[in-house]
């Protein structure tokens, strides 16, 4: 089997240059899509027959919630790759993910609470999805806390990678247990995302926003990744060139 593509992909100078070239594409596309999604969501989409204009929070809440999980998964997969094959770039990807994911997890919690306030009449409801989101925020904080407490980058990379992998194994279990617990204690929640009967004019802006946020994640990841790669390389000759331009 030919592994050269794999090693090329894992080589820091190649990734660094690739990241620099790709960032504007992802960045500007996501910017345009966010603008389109906002217009569609705030203006074009009709008000919900039950929640009126309050449902428009979905266009920021759902993409944030999607980000929180997608970024964690990306982080855990990158961490596992770094751990198994000792690939520095993979660790750099994992390290770049955490702050992005944590910030959107926080946004998902805040918007979820703001959405719940008029619907439930209270600022916080122990709704299974919000609770899972809260635990996810703790997982992110733990990951960043562990990284921050270990000075040596290599050790920090590997220790936090183990934690990320353990975390991703636990996320479904946590989600399941929270849903199970919730079903014992209260009626099913008001917020239902997967309503099959969502009109197209409502659905399209949502899909656009999901795509836009995903591309945005890639763009920010690529910028952070370059920083992380730089801090992991020691006096390699290509760094001089990379910094020169």
């Amino acid at each position, binding site marked *: 089997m030919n592994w050269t593509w794999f090693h090329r992909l894992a080589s820091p100078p190649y990734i660094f240059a690739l990241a620099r070239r790709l960032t504007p594409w992802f960045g500007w596309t996501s910017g345009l899509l966010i603008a389109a999604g906002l217009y569609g969501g705030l203006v074009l989409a009709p008000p919900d027959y039950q929640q009126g204009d309050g449902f428009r929070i979905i266009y920021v809440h759902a993409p944030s919630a999607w980000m929180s999980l997608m970024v964690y998964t990306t982080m855990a997969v990158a961490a596992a790759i770094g751990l198994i094959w000792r690939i520095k770039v993979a660790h750099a990807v994992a390290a770049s993910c955490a702050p992005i994911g944590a910030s959107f997890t926080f946004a998902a919690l805040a918007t979820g609470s703001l959405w719940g306030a008029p619907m439930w009449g209270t600022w916080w409801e122990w709704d299974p999805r919000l609770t899972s989101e809260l635990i996810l925020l703790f997982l992110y*904080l733990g990951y960043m806390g562990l990284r921050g407490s270990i000075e040596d980058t*290599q050790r920090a990379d590997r*220790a936090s990678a183990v*934690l990320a992998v353990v975390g991703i194994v*636990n996320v479904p279990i946590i989600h399941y247990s929270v849903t199970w617990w919730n079903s014992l204690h209260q009626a099913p929640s008001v917020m239902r995302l997967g309503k099959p009967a969502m009109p197209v004019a409502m659905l399209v802006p949502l899909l656009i926003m999901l795509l836009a946020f995903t591309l945005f994640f890639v763009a920010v990841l690529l910028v952070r990744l370059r920083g992380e790669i730089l801090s992991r390389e020691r006096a390699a000759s290509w760094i001089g060139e990379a910094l020169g331009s």
Partner: protein
Amino acid sequence: MSNVTAVTGEPAALAGEEGRGPPAPASMLDAARLVLLRDLKLAFRRRGQLVQPLAFFAMVTTLFPLAVSPELSRLREVAPGVLWVAALLASLLALEFLFRDDAHDGTLEQYSLSGQPLTWLMLAKTVTHWLLTGAPLALMAPLAALSLGAPGASVPGIVICVAVGTVALSLIGSIGAALTLGIRRSGVLLALLTLPLSLPVLIFGARATELAIRGSAYGAPLELLAAMAILGITLAPLAAAAGVRISLE
């Protein structure tokens, strides 16, 4: 290949005591037994450390009647939650000692260089941790539950639930303890890493205990608890061993 001679160093050349042949390697079971016995012996030489988590558990469960109300009917409602939060914190308290001394005096290095699977030795250490905290907690929990208004008939159920749940807690905790090795003042970080992962244990454990106190069938949540303990037994020692190796680097 040509330079392999009788004189040069195949391990067999080190044929052992008074020419009785090479030493017999210890089996995995022997190794685990010794790790377990050593930790038990050390724990009983330091009884103060052994009692601390249990005293903590007793303290916390005593605080609740004082903070909530002495009415047994109200206490009975919160009893499962109190028991499990206290057990979780007590188990967490003992975790800091799980690997700390071994890391400090070089024992973990010797374990990882022993030629025995480190995962297996970590499992032995975690079992010891459970024997020293989880098992006593399981025996103490009914006392605390009785003082919180649980009926006497619920005692066996509570013992089983806490015993199974603390197995899972010890295993999850061993990962956190291994990952925070070598970090100064790691207590809060250890809690931050371990508590979110322990959440399912808390949920199922409290539910099973609640059902046991009410006198209903608690089989379903207990099975889920046991499933998590089994999943933990298969996966947690792997992660703990990886964490220990990383801390030695």
